[in-house]
């Protein structure tokens, strides 16, 4: 009876069941596999492909491509066109982000202090966010028309009145009013203005949500502690409480500002504004990658764009973890 046992023993050792932890790990991988593979396929793979293409001279329809190394990137930092691209993009971001965040906060604070008509104001300020920017661009284009546009017509009414004290109107009456979209001095500011007009309602809604989380009793405590003015109470209670919201709003606004495209495409379909003064990154990607079929340089701009957005996100994460979570 003892002999078969001895011979069987090595066999049972080999077919011993897999330990529970290993089995659990396998099941976990199996269960996350669909989500993981989709994530890689849809989100990560395109980025990797774009990164690879940015080192080539590939054009859509070609069978082959050549490796060009860092040439695409060196173009980005040496050619005059791309210098204009960076200038336009950063001017837009640096103008639109602080103003649209500030206006959003201001509007949210004002609306929050209202007893009635809150919903009406909220809706009004949110309207431009809901509207299609492309359609709105056409309306703006009409309004900004140099001769028949509403804006210049309105400015003309100021001629011969006290409003002539304003330099813009004085010069306009003496000579002619700005061509707005056709003038390289004004184009980027007009675009920025439309960006602010369109975007601050979104920031306002985010701030309104943030304001609901401010503890009412803190204002009472601030009052008891001697914070009399609205500004002191804002500094002591509201602003710190809005810290996380602000970080989020600034990040979102930055990313949206980097992505500006619709208005520029609608106003100047053939080339990024007068003297390329509104040649922003998104438009450059579109122009190079789609219109001119220069996939390599388009991908290089895309990668640069991705780096900016990533940097912003990292700064946001760092701020949220370190500074604004109490």
């Amino acid at each position: 009876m003892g002999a078969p046992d001895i011979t069987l023993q090595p066999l049972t050792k080999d077919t011993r069941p897999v330990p529970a932890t290993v089995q659990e790990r396998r099941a976990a991988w199996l269960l996350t596999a669909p989500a993981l593979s989709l994530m890689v396929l849809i989100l990560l793979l395109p980025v990797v492909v774009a990164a690879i293409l940015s080192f080539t001279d590939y054009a859509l329809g070609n069978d082959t491509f050549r490796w060009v190394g860092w040439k695409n990137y060196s173009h980005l930092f040496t050619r005059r066109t791309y210098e204009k691209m960076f200038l336009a993009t950063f001017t837009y971001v640096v103008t639109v982000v602080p103003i649209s965040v500030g206006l959003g906060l201001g509007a949210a604070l004002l609306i929050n202090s209202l007893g009635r008509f809150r919903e009406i104001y909220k809706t009004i300020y949110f309207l431009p966010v809901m509207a299609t920017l492309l359609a709105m661009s056409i309306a703006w284009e009409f309004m900004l028309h140099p001769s028949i546009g509403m804006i210049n017509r309105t400015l003309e009414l100021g001629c011969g009145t006290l409003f002539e004290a304003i330099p813009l109107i004085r010069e306009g009456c003496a000579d002619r009013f700005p061509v707005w979209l056709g003038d390289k001095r004004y184009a980027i500011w007009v675009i920025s203005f439309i960006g602010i007009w369109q975007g601050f309602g979104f920031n306002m809604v985010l701030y309104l949500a943030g304001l609901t989380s401010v503890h009412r009793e803190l204002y009472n405590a601030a009052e008891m502690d001697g914070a009399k003015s609205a500004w002191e109470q804002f500094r002591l209670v509201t602003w710190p409480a809005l810290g996380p919201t602000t970080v989020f709003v600034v990040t979102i606004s930055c990313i949206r500002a980097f992505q500006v495209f619709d208005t520029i495409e609608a106003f100047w379909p053939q080339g990024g504004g007068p003297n390329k003064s509104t040649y922003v990154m998104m438009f450059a990607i579109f122009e190079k990658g789609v219109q001119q079929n220069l996939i390599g340089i388009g991908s290089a701009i895309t990668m640069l764009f991705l780096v900016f957005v990533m940097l912003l996100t990292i700064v946001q994460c760092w701020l949220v973890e370190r500074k604004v979570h109490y």
Partner: protein
Amino acid sequence: MAGLSITNITKRFGDTEVLKGVSLDIADGEFISLVGPSGCGKSTLLRIIAGLEDQSTGEIKLAGNDVSGVRAADRNLSMVFQSYALYPHLSVADNIAVPLRMRQQKALQRLPMIGRFVPGQRQIRHQITRDIRNAADMLEIAPLLERKPGQLSGGQRQRVALARALVRDPAAFLLDEPLSNLDAKLRVQTRVEIAQLHRKLGATFVYVTHDQVEAMTMSSRIAVMMGGRILQCAEPDTVYHDPEDIQVAEFIGSPKINILPVDQNATGALGLLGQALHLQVEQKCQSVRIGLRPEMLRLSGEQSLLTGTVEHLENLGAELFAQIAVPGLENRLVLRCDPSQRAAVRLGATVGLDFTPAQALLFDQDGTRIRRVHDTSRRPVSTAEVVQHGRT
């Protein structure tokens, strides 16, 4: 430090009248508790005293000066909030410093970085640091000064809130249910500490609570509020033993006072479940109820006024509360007995209950205390002896 005088305060929120003419005089250095069930208006009254809410009518005087219309920041009062209301982004030390900085420094001096170069800053800053130290030492939170409120336990936050209130020298302290967010054990401990703090500071404290135990254990006087009115304001002992109103009697005391309906015959003599109580009421009332505290009842033998069965027992160790169902009475009676009597009050046992009728608290149909009661058990008697609790 100063006394407070409140005269005829009313407060309306739309159609609801929350306070219906409240008057209260608080002496300098007194610890007064506003106690009552939720919705009785006690917190509203405190907020009106603080200046965070305006009264509809009435007058508030602080140290003899009318402060109606003076904003909260200018009333020189300190308040501790139920949620503690600490500034989450500031460290404990900065939290405590806020009332000092707001009052002693100008806007320019409070600016970060630049502020320290404004002339005359050194001295003020040193004084503020010293004051923070003193307040922190008094409440034993010195090791926590660098932490943020988010890193503190409920009890520690509570201490920080107290420190912030006492760091400057206010005319009075207002405390709005400061212990309600603490666990039971910590609450007892903090109760003692707040009472000691009051003795040490000798300042005026106005303390709002719904917990009658807190009110009883800490206050020099208790103001019992119900439905927007102060029903009685007296020392804890008086409120407990000599309540003016049946609602006060029912609210103060745990377990609750036993209320029994009694009959009154044509001559005004009272009887309970057909047995004479040897008490006579001068006025004729629609109905009379008597209130018996659990400790007024005692176990007795055969010849008892009341007989019933033990339905439920609550053993607190040092004392034992028995709920006894008496036939003919709607509610169970609660009896407080000594643990030595445990054998007699087993569940289901039939027990006899007795009490001294002269000790019972009598209330008329409106719940008002009946004061003119004659004890007819001992004869002859003179009126002066038998009118109970002559003090009012």
